[in-house]
């Protein structure tokens, strides 16, 4: 059984307030875990902890059975995180943006793949336009093109549907499901209602929820 990311007795205290306590969760291959909760319930914080950005937590994280702190580089090589901000440089073109992200992953990559990835998110024809001239939704799509371009098993997506139009939302949902069918796993927060599916699980944070996995 290929168990991927596991959290045991996770707790996070921010300035004398517990965002969550005693949180146990597991994300296995082929699963989508949707984190739900009202604003300020710690969704983003939880995603940052689970993507290894925040060290300020109690409890333990395991990546493939090994403590995350020990296998951090291996974990990061398998992770794709998209945060609130799309991480797209306004002065660079979508192609240049993607080239840098590929290089950060450690590969030079090639132009054809990047063009293909941009076409797949509906940005064909915008490859060489500075990102500053793109709309917010289009900039978000540049970031989403990384899902196509860099094969990573674990996706951690913080509000990926923000600023995306209806067709884009449907395409992204398809992409998430295709990813799980290939054996990838997705951890996502969104206010958008995802299509019900067998491999979708939900985690409620905040009042009333208190870290119950359903």
């Amino acid at each position, binding site marked *: 059984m290929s168990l991927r990311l596991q959290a045991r007795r996770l707790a996070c205290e*921010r*300035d*004398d307030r517990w965002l969550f306590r005693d949180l146990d969760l597991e994300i296995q291959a082929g699963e989508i875990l949707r984190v739900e909760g009202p604003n300020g319930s710690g969704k983003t914080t939880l995603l940052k902890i689970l993507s290894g950005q925040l060290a*300020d937590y109690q409890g333990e994280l395991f990546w493939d059975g090994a403590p995350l702190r020990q296998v951090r580089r291996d974990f990061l090589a398998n992770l794709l995180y998209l945060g609130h901000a799309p991480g797209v440089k306004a002065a660079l073109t979508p192609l240049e943006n993607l080239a840098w992200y590929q290089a950060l992953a450690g590969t030079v990559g090639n132009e054809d793949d990047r063009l293909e990835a941009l076409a797949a998110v509906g940005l064909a024809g915008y490859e060489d336009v500075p990102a500053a001239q793109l709309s917010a939704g289009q900039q978000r799509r540049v970031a989403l093109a990384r899902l196509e371009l860099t094969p990573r098993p674990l996706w951690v997506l913080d509000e990926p549907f923000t600023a995306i139009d209806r067709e884009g939302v449907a395409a992204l949902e398809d992409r998430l499901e295709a990813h799980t069918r290939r054996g990838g796993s997705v951890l996502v927060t969104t206010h958008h209602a995802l299509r019900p599916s067998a491999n979708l699980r939900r985690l409620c944070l905040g009042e009333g929820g208190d870290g119950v996995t359903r």
Partner: protein
Amino acid sequence: MWAFIHKLGSPKWFYAISERLMPWFWVAAVALILIGGVWGLAFAPADYQQGNSFRIIYVHVPAAFLAQSIFVAMAAAGFVFMVWKIKLADMAAAVMAPLGAGMTFVALFSGAVWGVPTWGTWWQWDARLTSMLILFFLYVGVIALRGAFASRDSASRAASVLAMVGVINIPIIKYSVEWWYTLHQPATFSVTSRPAMPMEMWLPLLLMVLGFYSFFIAVTLMRTRSEILRRESSKRWVRELVGEGP
């Protein structure tokens, strides 16, 4: 060994043990400063060159010593906090910063007062005073950085990093300023770096230095205790201590 360190790092345990230790440091501080002060100010012989004005050394030198030591202690506490995540170390570092800045100010002020009879001016770009001034700015930087963050945890980490960077720089700054000073003012004599100081002069100085250190430890213990109460106010043992129900 590890268990001991973590026990030492537990605020509750520290609160109990510091309550017993603190009076001793207060007694030592008051006694040493009184004896050293009276001896130094009233009984030690006057300096053959500077007369009685040299007696400000009994404030200036201990304050300058302490100012530098506190920075090192603060950086060490920051290191402990960063490496072992012991929150108590950060509480200590947080209370040390204003104390160190205060000591640096005392050293600067007493140096300026001393400058009047010695150099005939309130300020001279003397190597020691210049280093002290830079140290003061370093303290101000650490305090300002700690105050600038909204999240306390980030503030603690940032202040720790800056204190560690500062402590690597302090010797470099000190030596480069000394070098700069000898280059520009080779003729002026330095007030404190003369070797042969008679026993009757430096013994009270030693007492004063020890007294200042005891004072620093006592104040740090005291203020760390109140910092513990402030930061751990939601913990049960604190609420029981201050008489609220659990």
